[in-house]
């Protein structure tokens, strides 16, 4: 079975690689590019732990084949911080106590980033709706929502 060449931009850096079609974008990011910030959990698009931005839109990377990333731009959690410094949204997550075990957090941050890019001043109900595809078993939803609202007030 042959590989397919693709040209995909990940966190601003263009990469020309060959990928087997039966590789998800999630596996490609984690195993091939060593970008392990994006997490694997349900592999069905139900938990949101694998959320990345594809051309600016939040998607579940476990539901995309890596080959579908050809000519597209992918942003992962690693791509949000500059030189390792967290952005204002990430700071808000820290300040509001939204981070417990942290496993769902990259996905939550990416989903929140997308929400705020479409709706810079969401209501609490809109935040809950926007993050409804991201599960948190530690149950930190209240603080996560507060963090997103705080970030929207700060103008992120």
């Amino acid at each position, binding site marked *: 079975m042959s590989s397919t060449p693709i040209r995909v931009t990940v966190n601003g850096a263009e990469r020309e690689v060959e990928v*087997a079609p*039966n590789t998800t974008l999630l*596996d490609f990011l*984690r*195993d091939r590019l*060593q*970008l*392990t*910030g*994006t*997490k*694997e*959990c*349900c*592999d*069905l698009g*139900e*938990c949101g*732990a694998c959320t990345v931005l594809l051309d600016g839109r939040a998607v579940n990377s476990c539901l995309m084949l890596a080959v579908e990333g050809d000519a597209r731009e992918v942003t*992962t*959690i*690693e791509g*949000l*911080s500059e030189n*390792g410094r*967290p952005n204002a949204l*990430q700071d808000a*997550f*820290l*300040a509001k*106590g939204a*981070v*417990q*075990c*942290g*496993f*769902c*957090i*990259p996905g939550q*941050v990416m989903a929140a980033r997308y929400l705020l890019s479409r709706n810079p001043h969401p209501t609490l109900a809109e*935040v*809950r*709706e926007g*993050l*409804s*595809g*991201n*599960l*948190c*078993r*530690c*149950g*930190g*939803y*209240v*603080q*996560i*929502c507060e963090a997103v609202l705080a970030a929207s007030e700060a103008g992120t």
Partner: protein
Amino acid sequence: MIGTSQPRAGGLARVTGRQQFIADINLDHALHVKLVHLDCGHARIVAIDTAAASEVYGVVAILTAADLPQPVPRFGPVHDDRPILAVGETKYHGQPVAAVAAETKEAAEAAAELVRVEYEALPGVYTVAAALDPAAPLVQEPGLRPDDPLRHSNVLRELNYGWGDVEAAKADLVVENSYAFPMVTHFAIEPHAFIAAPDDGGVVIWTATQNPFQTQRIIARVLGLPLARVRVIAPDPGGAFGGKQHPKYEPLVALLALRTGRPVRLLLTLEETFQEVRRTSCEIHVRTGFQADGTISFQDIQSDFLLGAYADVAERVITKANYLACGPYRVPDARITVRALLSHTTPSTAFRGFGTPQVSWAHESQLDDAARCLGLDRVDIRLRNLARKGEAFVPGDTPCDGDWAESVRKAAGAIEWGSPIAAGRGRGLAVAIKASATTGASYSIVRLHWDGSATVLAGTSDMGQGARTVLAQVAAHELGIPIDSIKVVMGDTAAVPFDLQTSASRSTVFMGQAVARACRDINAQLRQMAADLGLVANVSVVELLRARFSEVRGEVIGVGSYRSEHQPGHPLGGSPSFYEFSCTASEVEVDEGTGQILLVRHVTVADVGKALNPQHVEMQDEGAAVMGLGHTLMEHILLDDSGRIRNLGALDYRIPTTKDLPLEMFALVVENADGPGPYGSKGAGEGGLMATAPAVASAVTEATGVVIRDLPLTPERVWRAIQSRDL
């Protein structure tokens, strides 16, 4: 420092995606492992053919029970009953029959698909009734428990607790009901994963465990190695809740690593994780006697807890929880009879609350029933019966150690108990009590470096509760140095001294005290150092260290420990070091047409002694409340007639999302500095889910008049109860 909401240590790494969870660890030349399991419950393995699988390019090893040392090693936290791979039979849906190790993930998956297992489905024990049926097959061969008089049954243990004389007790009202608590699973967002590698005559294991020292002990025994040759590295788990407390596949990967001479890596899927861990389910039958004024006169509790195929730690769950099956109340006469039953299901294990959600579901629902029958207020009946501080509510044991009534009043106030309520709405309030750690030991070593910074070595696992932060706060406070100059090292048996485990909300108390004592040991050495150097007593730490270590570098090492010794003869092995008492109050609105419940307001109150980090406590309590809403409203594992899990995976096993949150949620605390931990603290983190179900159910009853004694309160279940009401 103490009592301030210091930012979560490790938070920055988590929020930028740099935190290394176990699946993020990349080892060179690691083999990938894939498990082979059957789409069946209890089954006899007739034959396993690995020929086609071995042909797959990249396959390095395939293990079945026949390839393991004989007899196949068995292990467990208490009983050595779980085999490394299924032997002769699969005892639960998902028990692996073979393991494939290959150069790539794809090769391992492809080969696992090609392993041909010929098997025969067998009748199995999947319910309490089946476990008690004398004609049912035995889940465990009698030879596994040769000295156990019950070994020819599916009863693993019978427990009897109680005091006084229930038969002679007089009551104006006897309330008798049966309650059921379903199977639910932990569903940490991080699936289980296990890595092992040969290491200098021994082995190193990576596992996101809450209990690296037990893992070390078990691997050492199974492999016949001294403890010092087994290193367990435990990365911070991505959620654990008890599901990562006891070994599962660590022995398997350790064996594979030694066989192949290579590092091996096993990442379970979420479905495989569901098949590995769950909460112990149960049926509880209770008779409670009351005086006309609501005073409890007796409790007669008979419960059957359904363990899985292997005991894991579930017997301990049942023991601890049922020891307090009467709840935090004054009960003159009590009889508690419990059976721990084996079944052909996923082994149940520790799960946040450790049996308390189950028993409080029963005792709280009983009180509500009595209040309704006697025409009493449901808060008043609890205040009447709650044990008071200092009262030995379990005769002869640790007395009530908190002002529990204060928690109840606080919760009642926050839910506006007694105020007018809209039609279709109802309120409920419930309490729960859990015995914390009884025996155990925690050790800590603190190293004060010559520049005034410090490293704290503590074997606690930071699985989301923020133990790193809290322990750093303790050290910062005790040593008088900035918290930013403290690093907490956890999760490595080669570097960190012994800790029993992270469980039972014990770590703030046990490890917190160990760290505090280690720091005080350092402070004593520093005082001596100052005297030896002829310096004034109040010289700063930095100056003192500079004076001592400027020519010849060094460090000051402090050791601290906190131990609670075994008490032979005590039913729990030792007295509880403290009680975790919690109160939940809930206001709901019920859509009678569909049975859907809307949570209007949800309150939890935790009696924490001292909140060392208030924000962390709030995070834990709200998180626990949300988790409690899961088993209250929507979670249950469904088995088909042949013991297969029907709703395996995230699609049909539903946990709360942001849209399932109550409209308002409050997590409150009571702080009376009456705990045995540092600065009067107790443990926290489990309380928020212990009384969720009875509080919500009671609110549903007030809203609709229906009483439901099974969980979860799905829309359909509520609807059915309403239909019955209207007949």
